[in-house]
């Protein structure tokens, strides 16, 4: 079951998610799928980006749940503090 889910998620990452985040110099990698939870790592412009949570929850998670309804949640396993080229950088506003 998990392997099947992994394959579906990976296909979605390749076909829709990475082409979308590439516009901001970002990419997403599948880390694991456990108990219908998808763990992702973000890189490039997404790593450390001030909008990474919006991208993950409003973009990636919605898309994955829409296309693969058995997915319960998408979780971020990224070390955002190690990002060296975030697309948007937070400053106190």
């Amino acid at each position: 079951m998990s392997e099947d889910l992994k394959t579906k998620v990976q296909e979605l990452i390749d076909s829709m998610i990475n082409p979308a985040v590439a516009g901001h110099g970002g990419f997403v990698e599948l880390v694991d799928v456990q108990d219908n939870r998808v763990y992702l790592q973000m890189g490039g412009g997404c790593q450390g980006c001030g909008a990474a949570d919006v991208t993950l929850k409003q973009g990636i998670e919605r898309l994955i749940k829409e296309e693969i309804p058995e997915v319960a949640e998408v979780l971020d396993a990224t070390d955002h503090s190690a990002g060296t080229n975030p697309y948007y950088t937070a400053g106190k506003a």
Partner: protein
Amino acid sequence: MPSSAGRLLLLLPTTTYRTEAFVEAATRLGVELVCASERPSTFEPLAPDALITLDFTDPAACAETVARFARRRPLDAVVPADDLTTVVAAAIAQRLGLRANSVPAVSTARDKHAMRRCLAGAGVPVPRFRLVSLGDDPALRAAETTYPCVLKPLALSASRGVIRANDAREFVAAFRRISAILDMKDVSLPGEARHALLVEEFIPGVEVALEGLLVAGTLHVLAIFDKPDPLAGPFFEETIYVTPSRLPEDTQACIAAVTREACSALGLAEGPVHAELRVNERGPFILEVAARSIGGLCSRTLTFGTGLSLEELILCHALGRPLESLERERRAAGVMMIPIPRAGRLAAVHGTDEAAAVEGIEEVAITMHPGQDVVPLPEGWQYLGFIFARAETPDAVEQALRSAHARLRFAIE
């Protein structure tokens, strides 16, 4: 017609620190979010029901765009993440008939000169002040000024551009420096704020911050933070916030009372407020009342009731959900906004593990990335990161924050 699930529009400038906290709060509450930023998300074409781009410099246009969106996806609430979006949120709420502060109230709070005028007119204690045009001769204005004074832009935040002057020479230097800051390419201010600055009396004393929530015009004080590092100038870099306050109970009551008067005078009635006050033997003086919650990552110091975050309270209030508890946790808590020691490029941060190991420290969050240009006050507006602590007493929290900070070393080239 509102959605039955609770759909909320969150206004998130791409430069805000507040995104993670609000998105997490919405997830925990099961609130359906629509996120708006001033620059497009890469996912907007794939998720047009969840992501919008809005020009935050044009509140009326934002309100029209959102009204069109809401015809197909009704919204139940709108929440601004920070200062930049308070007026836009009010304009959208007014257009959609949602509960929120009025546009005039938040516009006044957003403009330091308009706020001073409004509060002084209502008899709320504020520093003596006057507006100075950047087209004026600074030497002439300096000659008319009583010292020490503080010069500040009308609408920047995070103490950016706020400078103390002790004499005419320092006044002229500060005037020119602020003028240059307002010309910086990342500074985008409306109308008068681009062409004028505020000169006000320097108020000696201790500084505190009050975090509150307005519900139907009643201010609920969520926390009063001490700022134990002296803020005497020439720049006003905020570092440590600790709550609960160690000031006497009657002083804290005065702080709350003056903030209530200020909110009432401004016409603020709903949602979060963040107030900054100076306190001395003459009592509390309002420096600022903003119609937003605390900035940076500082809200991580606040937990309410059975563990609700500040952002959960704000979202619940905006949606008209019952508020379980507005009582802050029993333990003392604090944050240190890590100051930038000098300008340059951040090469590395050392000692984070040692800092995190200090008793009472919960987290050391470095928010600047290696290779990033770092700019100290008064031109800069960012922090290197944040240190968070909890302990049994405010003194122990403050000590833990100072001890952790002493273990950090920043390589700036």
